[in-house]
């Protein structure tokens, strides 16, 4: 029997859900793998009481989100977090770097307090146990389908954990560090074929910090290349502000 899948959005820009619809050639095949129990973006209907797989997009920024997640964890056998927002806190977590409460005033002035139960943005895994992560801003839809199908089969995600430089080398890019520009590839989790670097833009760390990253060594590399070692940390805030900083 096809597993019942619910796609649930928290604080996000829906980009990862859109990416799922963006695999036009295979969308129908992919939908054939599952019984789509809930997808607010594409279909009418309410979040059902029972489903097997919860796919979560978005960062946790309100008390409602926390409640939704606790319920999802109770209901679903498998929880998959997709996209930087859900995996690392992503761009939303950038708002949490300094004085989160003041930001409300900056945007809304003294207006009515509508942002009920708001919290400093954080990743899904800080609230519930997450079984599979699909990192990236946005996700790569093929990677999502691979992880989803492996989750359904009960397999490990099979995703590499190492930093990005290796895959960047296979693309024959001239290293940004050698061109005097900061790049986060040397500490960012690989798996994206170094797309940004290949298209002329340094890695910005959207896939999160590689569990194998050697941050102190990377700071030294920056210094060696004439960059400010702390620039590494500053750049990392972009998608990883909710991380624990390694000294």
């Amino acid at each position, binding site marked *: 029997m096809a597993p019942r899948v619910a796609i649930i959005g928290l*604080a996000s820009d829906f980009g*990862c859900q859109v990416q799922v619809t963006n695999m036009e*050639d295979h969308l129908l095949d992919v939908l054939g793998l599952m019984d789509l129990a809930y997808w607010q973006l594409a*279909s009418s209907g309410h979040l059902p009481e029972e489903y097997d797989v919860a796919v979560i997009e978005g960062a946790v920024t309100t008390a409602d989100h926390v409640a939704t997640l606790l319920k999802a964890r109770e209901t679903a056998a498998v929880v998959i977090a997709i996209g930087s927002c859900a995996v690392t806190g992503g761009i939303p977590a950038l708002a949490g*770097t300094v004085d989160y409460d003041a*930001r409300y005033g900056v*945007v809304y002035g003294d207006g009515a307090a*509508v942002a009920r139960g708001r919290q400093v943005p954080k990743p899904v895994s800080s609230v519930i146990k997450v079984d599979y992560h699909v990192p990236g801003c946005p996700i790569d839809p093929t990677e999502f389908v691979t992880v989803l199908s492996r989750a359904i089969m009960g397999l490990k995600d099979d995703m590499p954990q190492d930093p990005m430089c290796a895959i960047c080398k296979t693309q024959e890019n001239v290293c940004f560090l050698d061109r005097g520009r900061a790049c986060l590839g040397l500490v960012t989790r690989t798996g994206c074929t170094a797309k940004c670097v290949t298209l002329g833009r340094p890695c910005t760390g959207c896939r999160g910090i590689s569990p194998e990253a050697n941050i102190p060594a990377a700071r030294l590399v920056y210094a060696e290349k004439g960059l400010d070692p702390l620039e590494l940390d500053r750049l990392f805030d*972009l998608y990883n502000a909710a991380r624990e900083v390694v000294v």
Partner: protein
Amino acid sequence: MSTLTVEHVARIEGHGTITVEMESGVVSDVRMDIIEAARFFESMVVGRRFDEVSLITSRICGICSPNHALTSLKAVEAAFGIEVSERTALLRKLFVYGSYLQNHATHLYVFAAPDFVGLPSVFPLAQTHPDIVERALRIKKTGNDLTTLIGGRPVHPITAVVGGFSAEPSAADLRAMAVRLEALVADTVATAELFQSFEVPAFETSGEMLALVEDDDYAIYDGETAALDAGWRRSASEYRQFIAEKVVGHSNAKHSTVGDRTFMVGSLPRINLSAGKLMPRAAETLAKLGIAAPSRNTFVNNVCQAVELVDAAERCAMYIDRLLGMGGATLPEPFTIKAGSGAAASEAPRGTLYHAYSIDDDGIVVGGDVITPTAQNLGNLEADMRAYAPTIAHLPKDEFILSMEKLVRAYDPCLSCSVH
């Protein structure tokens, strides 16, 4: 008093709830509660470097990210006084149209069409009307492939940077894309015909209509803001002087007014203001559909999106030809980082999008402001809902709800965008 709520209206981008208050069978109030969580983008960019702004703001919306990226780039360029090359501007226009193709196709087929055929989603259509679903996917895919060709991926462009592009598509790839776009015109015309065949309620909005206009082009990347009823044209970068935003109690998105009127932005206002600038097939389609611009029927917005699809397919093929024939570069020229402020506007698929930033001497952002199309539309949408609800109050509850949802979806609202 009874209250009717439709929580998490489906098939729109973001989370919103319709609340209708009835007093002895008469509609007394209608609200669109936007419960989408605020992410505070305007304060988030503060303290970040100028070249990160477009990366950050493109995450306001995963559906029209190319538009946010470009509008913020233009604002930063305005602050630094950077003029981009003609080639860059043309490539950027193509980029915007890629977004149009994918956005309009998604809205029309995935979000709106199920309403008209009485289905919860587009997926069952794959069984009953595979040709329609395949056509939808073809248009959407061409749009995505065009944005990918230029920006590196369909969502959150990689290559669009301050001053130009970090990489440019090859001539061969562009040429192949032009061929696909020409072939797509037939699909877009069929789309317009399909939507014309759906019955739309006779309903007129009372709001003003705003869109960018240019003297010699259908304005999407540049132009001045024009008001349909008031008849004025003003510099878009002065948007703060003609658009007033206010915080309302029930919505995390602010509401906007122009003068003291609510107003509408999007395909309908654009066609109302620039019908004469449409490409031939698009103009022909518009005429054939019997839509007399200006129209005030909000529901016609869907058909106008379809007409814009025709225009986009034709126009992009022409732009690619022009691009292949012209010289110039898109790699950014060196520029000086200096303190300054800049504002910019462009037409996103859902309407005019404004971004403004102040930057200090070190290139660090000190202030930011964004008004999204949906935020501009919300006041008007609520006004429409208030006007429309009493006229359908007699319908059974299910039909009443569906009709209200249709009205909401006619605006193609993007709620996470509107809150941002």
